């Protein structure tokens, strides 16, 4: 590690903590090609005639569209709101009229279209009424700041696109010791973070301080690569201007994929993020420098995320450079702003040459995760030679940063043995492409792993559906059985009662009691019968009645008469 003059150490910080750097297994030293796009400063790409804003520019739930064709929208106006916990809203990048909400080409490895809001810009770039800037953020509650970040649609700008507010929110459940600001350019060719640090170190640092206020970490590390001295100097200057002794700038060696969150945390701290866990589980949160700058703009300037810095580079572009591009701008517009294509351009990528993916048309829009548009010629990146059988040379194993056995994974992924592939930790693969890059048999390994992962997801979905169906079926059977059981129980109860009644008749004691009760009842009935027309009778008639009564009495109960 560089022990330069700008490292500040205070007594409460463990001085050895970042005293030396650590290594992760494998990785590659690749030719950078960063200088290609670093000749010119960051420029503004301008307002394109058409903005295509996909509802899904992040990891998580698709945003919910709030506008309809014909609506006039202002710059920064909310167009689609976040839906669910992990989601991000979409804002209008410029003013104009919504002309369509429909499926449009979308930068994704699958090449399928995605719903998007299409805006015809009016060129006036009128801003919507914005809320209040939160300049005094350090006196505010973190929940208010988190809400502002959520409302601003900020996602990780390093390339993954995970909603920033969700990531920061995990500090609610975990105490955060360390905030890592990732200024390590993940791949060759890309230089957007590098130039951002050179030109806007102040913004980044202000964003870092907001993040510090939210997370309250003990330490903060800003990691830059060893091939960016200018960016490092700018960051160091900005750090010393803040006189915050908790922020440290660290220079890390340019070994691909150090820009990966897990790898960078390993390099800086020597610790490993648990394989199925998150950095917050070990008290660390990692944010890209671009994300920090976006947080600054959202909080201090109250500007939602409507543009980002994009590296437009490769030998297929006339004048490679970095530009601030409005989200929704087509790749074609951005390329035109760089002088257009060279004659022999052959493939167009979003992202870097290792993990980026080819797009089939340049009408796809720049989205929140578009860090790089890479247009290359056939000579620079010739089509891959045909794949040969794997000879198990193990070169892939020696470069794998996740310590996997790529040759075994390939074997099982190819034969469709998904269980075995998962036993060999398929889901710990970060798809960095190191294995495929060194493979002497030119096997598109990453493609196999991606495919196997998708298969597993599909199977899991089917399994879940089958599980639900099975549970439902089991519940139905259970219910039918219960009804049957209850019916049977009722029957037996009835039978028992009947049987009990039968038993009663046979019992002489009970029979005697019954007979006695019967007699009492009859007597009572007789007693209750009141004689009618007995008024005004002659004594003769009264005597006759008495005689009849006495006779009746005698007949009905001879036993009693005997007594």
């Amino acid at each position: 590690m560089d022990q330069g003059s700008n490292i500040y150490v205070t007594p409460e910080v463990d001085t050895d903590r970042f005293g030396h750097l650590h290594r992760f297994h494998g990785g590659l030293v690749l030719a950078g090609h960063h200088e290609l796009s670093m000749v010119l400063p960051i420029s503004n790409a301008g307002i394109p005639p058409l903005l295509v804003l996909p509802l899904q520019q992040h990891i998580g739930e698709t945003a919910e569209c709030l506008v309809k064709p014909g609506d006039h929208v202002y710059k920064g106006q909310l167009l689609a709101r976040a839906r669910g916990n992990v989601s991000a809203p979409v804002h209008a990048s410029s003013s104009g009229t919504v002309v369509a909400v429909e499926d449009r080409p979308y930068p994704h490895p699958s090449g399928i279209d995605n719903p998007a809001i299409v805006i015809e810009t009016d060129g006036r770039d009128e801003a919507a009424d914005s809320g209040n800037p939160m300049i005094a953020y350090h006196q505010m509650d973190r929940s208010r700041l988190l809400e502002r970040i959520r409302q601003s649609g900020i996602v990780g700008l390093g390339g993954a696109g995970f909603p920033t507010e969700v990531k920061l929110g995990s500090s609610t459940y975990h105490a955060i010791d360390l905030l890592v600001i990732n200024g390590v350019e993940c791949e060759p060719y890309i230089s957007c973070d590098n130039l951002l640090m050179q030109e806007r170190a102040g913004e980044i640092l202000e964003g870092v301080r907001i993040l510090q206020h939210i997370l309250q970490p003990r330490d903060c590390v800003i990691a830059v690569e060893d091939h960016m001295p200018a960016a490092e100097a700018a960051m160091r200057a900005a750090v010393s201007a803040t006189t915050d002794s908790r922020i440290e700038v660290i220079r890390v060696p340019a070994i691909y994929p150090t820009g990966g969150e897990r790898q960078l945390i390993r390099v800086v701290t020597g610790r490993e993020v648990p394989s199925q866990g998150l950095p917050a589980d070990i008290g660390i949160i990692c944010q890209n420098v671009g994300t920090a700058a976006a947080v600054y703009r959202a909080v201090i300037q109250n500007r939602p995320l409507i543009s980002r810095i994009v590296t437009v580079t490769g030998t297929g572009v006339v004048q490679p450079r970095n530009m601030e591009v409005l989200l929704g701008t087509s790749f074609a517009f951005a390329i035109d702003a760089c002088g257009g294509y060279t004659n022999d351009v052959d493939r167009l990528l979003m992202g870097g040459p290792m993990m980026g993916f080819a797009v089939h048309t340049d009408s796809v829009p720049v989205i929140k995760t578009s860090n790089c548009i890479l247009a290359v010629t056939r000579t620079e990146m010739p089509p891959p030679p045909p794949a040969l059988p794997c000879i198990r040379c193990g070169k892939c194993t020696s470069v794998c940063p996740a310590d996997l056995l790529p040759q075994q994974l390939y074997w099982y992924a190819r034969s469709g043995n998904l269980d075995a592939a998962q036993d060999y930790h398929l889901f710990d693969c970060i798809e960095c492409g190191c294995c495929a890059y060194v493979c002497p048999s030119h096997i598109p390994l990453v493609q196999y792993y991606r495919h196997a992962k998708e298969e597993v997801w599909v199977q899991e979905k089917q399994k879940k559906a089958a599980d639900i169906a099975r549970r439902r079926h089991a519940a139905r059977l259970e219910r039918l059985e219960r009804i049957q059981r209850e019916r049977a129980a009722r029957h037996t109860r009835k039978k028992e009662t009947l049987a009990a009644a039968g038993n009663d008749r046979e019992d002489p004691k009970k029979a005697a009691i019954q007979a006695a009760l019967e007699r009492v009842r009859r007597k009572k009935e007789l007693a209750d019968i009141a004689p009618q027309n007995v008024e005004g009778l002659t004594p003769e008639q009264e005597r006759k009645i008495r005689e009849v009564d006495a006779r009746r009495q005698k007949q009905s109960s001879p036993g009693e008469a005997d007594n």
Partner: protein
Amino acid sequence: MDFKIYSSPHLPVTDNVPVMMQRVLIAMVPGTVCAAWVFGPGILVNVLLASITAIAAEAGMLYLRNKPVVTTLFDGSALLTGVLLGAALPPLTPWWIPVTGCLFAIVVAKQLYGGIGYNPFNPAMAGFVVLIISFPFELTLWSAPHQSLGLLDTLRLMFMNTLPDGMTLDALTMATPMDNIKTHLGLNETITEIRGTGLFGNFGGSGWEAINLWFLLGGLWLLKTRVIQWQIPVSMLGAMSCMALVFYLSNPDTYTSPVFQLFSGATMLGAFFIATDPVSASTTPRGRIIYGAGIGMLTYLIRTWGGFPEGIAFAVLLMNMAAPTIDYYTQPRVFGQGGD
């Protein structure tokens, strides 16, 4: 504008199988030339015969299996099998020995299992073992160092089984030092006594030490160019030396020294060119150490107490069998799974 779709990573490839095979073939040259210098042109004739047979057999099998013939042949693996097997055979052996061995190696041990990448056993060693079991006599036809026949006489012997006038096969051939030691130890002679017979060079078998040195040199170049990795050769030679050292120290009169073991027979050829065949070897970093050590120990055991003078071929095949199990139990700890 529309573009073609490719899968990531997009950077041009850096390495390929044909180049790896070519490098192994280049690294074979010094040791093979040295063997020809010591044992005569018969070595080169064997290599040539075996190579031609290997390529022809590979082409025929690929054709029968409806596989692309030309592109697969150009991966160089069949040629390498031929060269390896040819270099391991004695110089005065009849022509059909390399041919039979190579046919078995390519047709049965390689192509019937699915061709390159799918063979569980090292094809060259499978061919060699078939030969040494089926034709033990023909595999003893080593000439005495630096006393070989000329090219024409060698060809006549190999192809027509005729010797120059007044020469007998017995007079021409000579047991290898390894074989010789075994025979003499069986007669209760001590190593010191056997050393007097002139079979020994400065530190290994006479003539063999030079061959081993050149193969070692080729192997080091392969390590440097990263065609092979260090684990298998280092662990194999290390395990062999350790075993030899223990027994040598216990009784130097009955056991040869570690240095003799390292520079006799096919030790260096085995360590750098045969045991490192990636297809049939273990592929995990730790597994390779176990795999190499296993070959080293088994080779020493077979050389010292087994029925054959040289044990590398058997040791390699035995460890080939163990490789999948070794791989299973030596998986590396995955990033983020336990430990710190």
